[in-house]
């Protein structure tokens, strides 16, 4: 696992550095290093589980998606008995602060959960692609195999671009196709990284984004929800 993370780190740096240089963005390199450092070596220790509240932000609808075997699955059927961590992504993403970061953090969450089987039984990780034309079930299956999750981590897509729209709208996940100057789709999307924490009632209890998303924070939030189920008072 450590090898995978190290490989991820160096590949991201090697890939994104020339991108940043090409864009001529001042401080871009520092930003890349910054994003990676914060994902793997956060600058803060999250508050202890149960010492804070995560009031419901929103509720989400049920949606039918395709799993990496190409089989239709209901979002509610997957998440009803679990605390869910849901990331929207596309596998061709080259934004270091976006999908790659989310995958790296979820991989850490998966790793931590694997060491705590009782906790892992309460949790499901979902990575949902908003690029169904390229992210076919077969492709997601290959990506999943490469990540080799040890806990319940599903990779989902949808039958068509139209089918993913209501899911994105429901989660308020903005995604925009980026077009180049010639009027062709660049193959990229502009999207703000959002990773959603859902309780067993499909209520959104937290939304993570770049700069505030690391494995320890997610695990503390999961434990906070479990303590809440047990009647813990979050009042400090």
């Amino acid at each position, binding site marked *: 696992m450590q090898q995978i993370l190290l490989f*991820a780190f160096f*590949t*991201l740096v090697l*890939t994104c550095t020339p*991108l940043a240089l090409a*864009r*001529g*963005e001042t*401080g871009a390199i520092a*930003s890349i290093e*910054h994003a990676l450092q*914060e994902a793997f070596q956060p600058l*803060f220790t*999250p*508050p202890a589980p149960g*010492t*804070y509240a995560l*009031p419901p*932000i*929103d509720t989400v*609808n*049920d949606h*039918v998606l395709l799993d990496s075997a190409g*089989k*239709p*699955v*209901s*979002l*509610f*059927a*997957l998440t009803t008995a679990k605390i869910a961590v849901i990331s929207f992504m596309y*596998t061709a*993403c*080259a934004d270091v602060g976006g*999908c*790659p970061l989310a*995958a*790296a953090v979820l*991989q850490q969450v998966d790793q931590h959960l694997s060491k705590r089987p009782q906790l892992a039984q309460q949790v499901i990780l979902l990575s949902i692609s908003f690029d169904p034309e390229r992210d076919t079930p077969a492709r997601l299956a*290959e*990506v999943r195999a*490469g990540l080799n999750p040890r806990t319940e981590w599903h990779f989902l897509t949808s039958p068509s*671009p139209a089918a993913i*729209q209501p899911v*994105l*709208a429901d989660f*308020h996940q*903005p995604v*925009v196709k980026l*077009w*180049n100057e010639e009027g062709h789709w*660049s*193959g990229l999307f502009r999207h703000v990284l*959002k990773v959603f924490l859902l309780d067993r009632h499909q209520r959104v209890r937290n*939304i*993570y*984004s770049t*700069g*505030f998303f690391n494995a320890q924070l997610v695990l503390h939030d999961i434990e906070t929800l479990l303590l809440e189920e047990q009647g813990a008072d979050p009042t*400090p």
Partner: protein
Amino acid sequence: MYCLPSAPHRYPWLAVLCILTVLTGRSGIVRADETCQSPYLPKITGQEDYIYIWTLGAEGIGDGSDKLVTVGANPNRPEQYGKVIASVSVGGRHEAHHGGFTDDRRHLWLGGLDDSKIFIFDVAADPAKPQLVKTIETFVQDSGGVVGPHTFYPLPGRMLITGLSNSTDHGGKTGLVEYSNEGKYIRTVWMPDKAEYGYDVRVQPHLNRMLTSSFTGWNNYMMDFGQMLADKEAMKRFGNTMVLWDFHARAPLQIFDVPGAPLEIRWALQPRHYYAFTATALTSKLWLIQQQPDGTFVAKAVGDIGDPTKVPLPVDISLSADDQFLFVTTFMDGYCRVYHVADPEQPRLVHEQQIGKQVNMVSQTWDGKRVYFTSSLLANWDKKGEDNEQFLKAYTWDGQKLTPTFAIDFFKENLGRPHIMHFGQDQFYKNQLYTEKPSREPAAVATAAP
């Protein structure tokens, strides 16, 4: 990792593809947008097309109502540039003041400090013509007594709103209120007893820290300015504190003594710059709130703004994206002062220029090339007679001086008193993959999970 390292031996081509597509698709893009927004807000890139200005209604001016005014800001569109292209009245005067986009930038929330109404505009459907789509009239009731919604700060999926006052005594005790993007109340966090005033809020997510500042309550900000200055008791009722919070827990960690109403807060924008600036309205000082090696923060005054004995009343600050320049507006003398703040502990005045007889908000583009100013502070605090100029003025900034480009007289245009500005752009909303949230209903073809 999905793109590259997930299975690198299977997708060696993908790395090259990613590089090529990004280079062809995005090189040359210049980030524009305002510099001092929430880090959770997606930025518009390139030239802003519109400036949205939340404008106080003024008696005898047009319909006298608060309104959202849209001004063309793209010089490549001469038919719009520097002109009012839309104006949507919300009916009545509510003490229009501040506002902010939701984190998907599809809606602009605008607050009234007097009756605490919140007006929500859709800016995505037609960015040139924002439409009022919802009004929250229950802010005080929802929040358990918070009055005067001030800062609207987008967080993922929700809006964090600071209050200025409370419904019990209309004094300065207040709180932080959160709503979902759809306008559903989430929670209220009251300011700590030893720092009960509120004003601005800004989050530094990398550190899990949040800063709040302090102003004054409804009794003061709705009072005539001259009358208030003469009222010694009223002048005692201003905030003198800032609070550092554990952002995730919404728990106060440190309270700083910052005398004289610290108003706008600006965190540094560059990586590893763990400090923020504020300016105190009544004492006219720049303050630095800086992280120490042990992780705690210290607040200290780092310079005067103008001549504090003349009470120039600094009201807004705007930090450049490279953390090099801090633009400070002072209401009473109508000046913008630009400080070089590469060394944040020793700000150096590098430029000053009078913008008008009074000036209030300043917004700077991310590329540092354009700066916009508006004139109104509060309906009862604005100057009187000929000094009561009400304008939007646009300038370019070349690193040394401000050069005017266009100006709009908001009284001559029958609009009112312009306050906060936000930027809009057509291109930002093109090709978005969704347009609206569907109704809550079960999936049509749900099947059992494997």
